[in-house]
């Protein structure tokens, strides 16, 4: 039986980051992955010959720059290319585009509503201030507010001080920001429905809430707090698809002497005398270690790979109640050419970014109602990108790859499994919507990979296909993530840790949970801390 210092279950980007730091500290580390490939939901796969699909996560921004530098991911082959543009197209053919030049952007907003143009400045300042507050906290473990341990008290005081730095009004704004609906939040700034729709998409992506649901303003922040090369809020493509992120982290891990076995689904975490002793895979191979780290989501971790008698019953109950609702789907499309969008005209640089087809907040909320009623949205919110325009390595010359993220798609149809007819219906709903804005689109479609939450669960292992490993609502954020009392990455069994997006600070290819978990493990093993703290932006 092979003996290791630590075993990480799952080679997602967080598992790999966690493993990389443990290995770098000098530990003998093994990563076990059930798929024949690594990366979890940060993968590039050649489903159609010649095309590289980022078939789950598709854009990069939240990846912590501290970790990018510290693990020398650039040297390990990761290149993040920022993309510009981005546009919302309305059904009457009008557009609202994103521009980098402030004056141009202002004119674009003013075209829709002059007062909104003024408000946009105020809005960006407010949101940016929230980003500045939260960014340095991403690479810290959340304190337990019920604890009197010096470390938790210190951390609480630190948080209070950080808040105080921004002043009294900021504290109130923060309380409001974290609890409001994105619609109410935007209503405080803007009047034009198109402007509000254009900005509200980030509040619902990946979330089982509608634009009118209180709590969605935070989800928006979650999508804004990243950066590309220090440009906060910017998004980019990992060259070669999102698999490049996992590959680079894996390469760093291996350079520290780490080992990865693929095709090795874990059957059970072995526990003896109240502490972990290793894992056994489906084919019966046992690996021994005193530290076991799970990159899986909390539900899967505590209901699938443990013998329930090794766990406190309350934990199993909490895992069952963990809100991990699938709400998103995806179409990955191979195109024989570049589709035209008449609303944009030819060669419009706006087409390099995210495209949306929007009219009103009401239409977006109705899309959520469909999901609540157990079916995919009949007028879904799409986040459509053509990465091959920026990164030609993703498709053969002259051809293109289109990534279409779809909100909302339920994990079950009226409580039952998806059928092929449902899948076909869902696919056509999305293709039809795009076709309405691009007449030549359908004729260019060569291959479509249709991914409902079921495919995401079956392939990546995310329960119900939730892209964040658990809803980003207040009961599941900060010291409540994954469960109150377990937010500092330690599990209920000695030697067991969690490192996935189901822990603080959540999903979005940040790698922060993996790094934070590594810091806690090294602390428990009484080894020096080598995991970087968050930077301040100033």
């Amino acid at each position, binding site marked *: 039986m092979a003996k290791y210092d630590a075993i990480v279950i799952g080679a997602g980007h967080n598992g790999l980051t966690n493993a990389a730091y443990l290995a770098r500290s000098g530990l003998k580390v093994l990563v076990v992955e059930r798929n024949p490939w690594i990366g979890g939901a940060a993968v590039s796969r050649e489903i159609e010959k010649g095309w590289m699909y980022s078939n789950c996560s598709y854009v990069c921004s939240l990846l912590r720059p501290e970790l990018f530098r510290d693990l020398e991911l650039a040297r390990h082959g990761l290149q993040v290319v920022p993309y510009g543009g981005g546009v919302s197209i309305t059904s009457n053919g009008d557009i609202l585009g994103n521009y980098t030049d402030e004056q141009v952007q202002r004119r674009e907003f003013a075209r829709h509503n002059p007062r909104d143009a003024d408000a946009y400045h105020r809005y960006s300042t407010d949101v940016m201030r929230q980003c500045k507050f939260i960014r340095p906290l991403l690479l810290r473990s959340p304190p337990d*507010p019920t604890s009197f341990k010096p470390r938790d008290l210190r951390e609480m005081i630190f948080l209070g001080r950080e808040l105080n730095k921004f002043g009294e009004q900021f504290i*109130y704004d923060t309380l409001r920001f974290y609890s409001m609906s994105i619609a109410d939040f935007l209503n*405080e700034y803007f009047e034009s429905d198109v402007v509000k729709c254009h900005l509200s998409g980030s509040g619902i992506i990946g979330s089982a809430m509608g634009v009118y649901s209180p709590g969605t303003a935070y989800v928006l922040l979650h999508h804004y707090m990243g950066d590309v090369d220090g440009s906060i809020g910017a998004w980019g493509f990992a060259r070669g698809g999102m698999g490049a992120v996992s590959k680079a982290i894996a390469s760093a891990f291996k350079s520290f002497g780490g080992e990865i076995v693929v095709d090795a689904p874990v059957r059970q975490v072995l526990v003896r005398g109240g502490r972990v002793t290793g894992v056994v895979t489906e084919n019966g191979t046992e690996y021994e270690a005193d530290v076991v780290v799970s990159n899986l989501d909390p539900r899967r971790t505590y209901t699938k790979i443990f013998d329930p008698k090794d766990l406190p019953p309350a934990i199993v109950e909490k895992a069952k109640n963990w809100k991990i609702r699938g709400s998103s789907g995806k179409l990955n499309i191979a195109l024989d050419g570049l589709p035209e969008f008449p609303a944009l005209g030819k060669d419009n640089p706006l087409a390099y970014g995210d495209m949306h087809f929007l009219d009103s907040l009401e239409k977006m909320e109705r899309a959520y109602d469909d999901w*609540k009623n157990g079916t995919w949205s009949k007028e879904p919110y799409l986040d459509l990108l053509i990465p091959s325009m920026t990164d030609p390595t993703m498709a053969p010359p002259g051809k293109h790859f289109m990534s279409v993220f779809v909100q909302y798609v339920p994990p079950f149809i009226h409580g039952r499994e998806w059928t092929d007819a449902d899948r076909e219906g869902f696919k056509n709903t999305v293709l039809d919507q795009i076709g309405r804005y691009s007449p030549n689109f359908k004729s260019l479609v060569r291959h479509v990979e249709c991914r409902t939450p079921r495919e995401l669960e079956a392939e990546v292992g995310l329960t119900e296909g939730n892209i964040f490993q658990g809803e980003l609502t*207040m009961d599941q954020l900060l010291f409540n993530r994954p469960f109150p009392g377990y937010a500092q990455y330690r599990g209920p069994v000695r030697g067991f840790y969690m490192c996935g997006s189901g822990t603080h600070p959540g999903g979005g290819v940040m790698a922060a949970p993996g790094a934070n978990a590594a810091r806690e493990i090294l602390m428990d093993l009484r080894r020096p801390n080598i995991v970087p703290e968050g930077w301040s932006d100033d």
Partner: protein
Amino acid sequence: MTDRDRIVIVGAGHNGLACAAYLARAGREVVVLEAAPQVGGAAVTREFAKGFRVSGCSHLSYLLDPGIARELKLASHGLKWARTGLKTVALAQAGDHLVLRGGKVESGTVPEADRKALAEYHARMLRFARVVARQHNRKPPRLGGGGRSEMLGAALLGFDIRRLGREDMREFLRIAGINIYDVLEEQFDSPALKGALALDAVLGTNLGPRSNNSVLSLLHRLSGEAAGNDGLSIPEGGMGAISEALAAAARAAGATIRTSSPVRRITLEGDRVSGVELEGGEKVAAQTVVSNADPARTLLGLLGARHLETGFVHRIRHFRTKGMAAKLHLALEALPSFARLSAELVGERLVIAPDMTYLEHAFDAAKYGQCSPEPALEVTIPSLHDKSLAPAGKHVLSAVVLYAPFDPRASGDEARSELLDRALAALDRHAPGLRRQVTASELLLPADLEREFRISGGHWHHGELALDQFMMLRPVPGAAQYAMPVGGLFLCGAGCHPGGGVMGSAGRNAANAVLAMERAA
């Protein structure tokens, strides 16, 4: 004493009256000016059809602060209870009605596990509601500003949460910001039970069971019981009796109350208030003006935005005030008979909310400006407890109907008759023949409540009770301590902490703020 020492209170709602009573007891000259011919604001008993009287807006008392009732001796000023501790009867189409009292299922088919879970749930929610109740009579602390006393206030709040104990504190911090749907789904199986419990979390709000903030709204509702009230009660003479008793207490302490005296505007001298001007042109000079009107009406209407800083005006404009609850009043020629409901239960609180999906669907329609196709109802027949409300042998039915949009897509008249018809249909399904017993009816949409009770948006809390409009954020951050940014102007209504629900706390806290300001001057 000169005119200048006078305190004018705009509006004789229950909070205005409580505020008046406390200030008069402290020896101040207090004049209350009320636009309506009677006192009470939304806590009022009024005739809606010849011989039929009903509580016009709020129809059950559960939040009245026991401390205020004691201090102002409301009992000796005439407040009597016709009925306390009402049970909740969740009507079921099949006749298998659920009867709930506190954490107990008194009858109805509910799995054993759910009965046990309900006892735990109720006890836990009450413990959490006690934390909320402890804040009722405190001025909300400022966070990160205002010096030592404010820090102490914030510490006190932290201490109240801490002393729940570790397990409870964790659970409190987990659920306080989320929705009732998720909480109930974790603990119960019975759809009927979940429907009835969820209704309490969304009554009078702009929330469906799946909307976050609904747990907070439930805790607010339960905070009355946590403060020592015996659940839901009906005063003798309707809700107006509470206002009458408060008015009597205020008068006894020396306050003057003038009804039919609508205030046109609050007057200023320099940057301080100098009094008010009535609709008739009469001026009443005052050193201090306390407004029981809602924040928008007070600051943008009576005072005028031009006297305020733009950022502040912007925030007040965005204080969310649109109500989503309608009020139904029926004059009945006889007591309706509900299918398979024993006679002694007809006088309890009857609810129609068969499951959470029903509620959520009812809510969905209202999001888009439509009245719920299948509304949820909270029904009482107060004439069973209080004969004075209806002619002998006849009855009056009072119901809250969910949901009705503030600004319906259809015209107000269409929406009104549509919702009335649907509410009657829902009632008739459970009490066949009820429709034929109706001799007069009245349905007040939120817009009607706005008109009748002068509450902007027609929201019975003066503004949505949500985390972003709660405590130090109510009505808007920076003005949550009753004193407004204009010298001598205070708010004392439900738009301030701790919110609506006929409690009197906002009135008393505002009185304390006025007195504290005088001391500091």
